[in-house]
């Protein structure tokens, strides 16, 4: 006997409502967009963290070629002089000069294979690791004196910009998700109100028979939960497919300007929670809408 058990129909025939069909589709679309926004924010966040950890606690010295400067020491001598200054500076843990081929490899994404052309006037770079505070201004003066053409970059501007950019991306993602959530809430409110209007007679009858507002609201909650779950899983599946495609294509790009676009397992799991969040939001909204509306009944 299916009655009164799992397959028992709801007291309210909500499944027949036209508004039911659109709610699943809208939830699918919203979960899809929210998952993409969150994935984008996570990728940018990871990228920024990698750059941040790679740059913070380090300095870069660039020694430019000086083709027009007569009497200037050769580039290699200036590099050695700079290394001597750096290794004796307080707060410097190590200073390593990049070879010309290392520099060419770094520039290859921008210049292509021609970056290794010895005729190109390439600067030399020194990677400096620090283990304490460094007097950047004083060190800069000493470097310029020992190695003309040397500049010291403590990445402060770059890091500040990077952190500001990451913050903006997070804020934008949060805004997108909030907008999506707001639209989802409005869709559920509309759907539930439509259901209440269509089934007003049944709701009133249930009330007269002794149904509490929570009894009625549970029927709507169950209904929108089912629709949201179906739509949410469909939206998530689509988002995973799209993200998988993007990550696959980005990993195949040679000499790409794009950073490493990957998501960790926990990040995929976090995306999997988006439909659950949509379901919970839909249920809470349905409950609030029904209780608020039924409050006007005697």
């Amino acid at each position, binding site marked *: *006997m299916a*009655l*009164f*058990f799992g397959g*028992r*129909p709801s*007291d309210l*025939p909500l499944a*027949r409502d036209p508004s039911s069909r659109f709610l699943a589709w809208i939830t699918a679309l919203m979960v899809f967009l929210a998952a993409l926004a969150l994935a984008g924010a996570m990728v940018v966040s990871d990228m920024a963290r990698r750059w941040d950890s790679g740059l913070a606690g380090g300095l870069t010295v660039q020694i430019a070629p000086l083709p027009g400067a007569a009497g200037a020491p050769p580039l290699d001598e200036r590099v050695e002089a700079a290394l001597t200054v750096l290794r004796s500076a307080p707060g410097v843990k190590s200073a390593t000069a990049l070879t010309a081929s290392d520099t060419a490899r770094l520039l290859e994404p921008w210049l292509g294979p021609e970056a290794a052309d010895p005729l190109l006037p390439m600067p030399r770079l020194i990677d400096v690791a620090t283990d304490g505070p460094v007097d950047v201004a004083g060190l800069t003066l000493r470097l310029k004196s020992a190695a003309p053409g040397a500049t010291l970059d403590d990445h402060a501007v770059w890091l500040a910009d990077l952190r500001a950019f990451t913050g903006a991306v997070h804020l934008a993602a949060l805004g997108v998700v909030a907008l999506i959530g707001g639209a989802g809430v409005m869709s559920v409110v509309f759907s539930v109100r439509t259901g209440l209007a269509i089934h007003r007679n*049944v709701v009133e*009858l*249930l*009330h*007269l*028979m*002794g*149904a*509490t507002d929570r*009894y009625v609201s549970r029927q709507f909650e169950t209904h929108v939960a089912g629709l949201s779950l179906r739509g949410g899983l469909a939206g998530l599946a689509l988002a995973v497919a799209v993200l998988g495609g993007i990550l696959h294509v980005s990993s195949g790009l040679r000499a790409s300007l794009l950073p490493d676009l990957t998501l960790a397992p926990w990040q995929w799991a976090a995306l999997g929670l988006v439909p659950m969040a949509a379901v919970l939001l839909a249920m809470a909204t349905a409950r609030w809408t029904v209780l608020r509306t039924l*409050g006007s009944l*005697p």
Partner: protein
Amino acid sequence: MIRFENVGLRYGTESEVLRDISFTLQPGSFHFMTGASGAGKSSLLKLMYLAHRPSRGLITLFGRDMARVTRAELPEMRRQIGVVFQDFALLDHLSALDNVGLPLRMGGTPDADAVAHCTEILRWVGLGNHLHAKPSTLSGGQQQRVAIARSVINRPRLLLADEPTGNVDDGIGMRLLYLFEELHKLGTTVVIATHNEALIRRFDHPRLHLDNGRLHVMPARNAKWG
């Protein structure tokens, strides 16, 4: 059980459909409610099953002054009232069994118990072969019996019926009245609005007679003579 004191009811700005209604129904009493169409029978029943609040006057139900009962307390009180609506008010998408089980589900009765009770009562009203039938596939009389089964499944303290025998033949009508009599003997207070003079004479209970919005309480012996 029920006491009305100078109760009046008006819908919106219309004139009163019920005026100065005063009566008392003792627990376990049985009354017929009579009156011409438009006399106010349905309105009086609506006040009794708490669908409306009166425009004036005092209603006491189950010992509670209804003016002091909060909205949150109403569902529990309503579950103690069984109502047979004139239009049956069955839910078309539910089977007879599910319709009858509605009050039990609202009261939290376990499913297995609810199924057993509903099956038993539907068999009693002669619908044992229609447990899973949707109301649209049942005749008017069968729908009415489902509605009656639903109204009594909860063993209500107060049973209100609006023309419960209007769509059934005399045999079924008599059987249903005997069911109401049985509930009455178990202590349920029963009020049945009806035009069926034969039933009223047969069962010899006092009348609440409405005439143009005013109530006249007639003892049982008067009903026999009516």
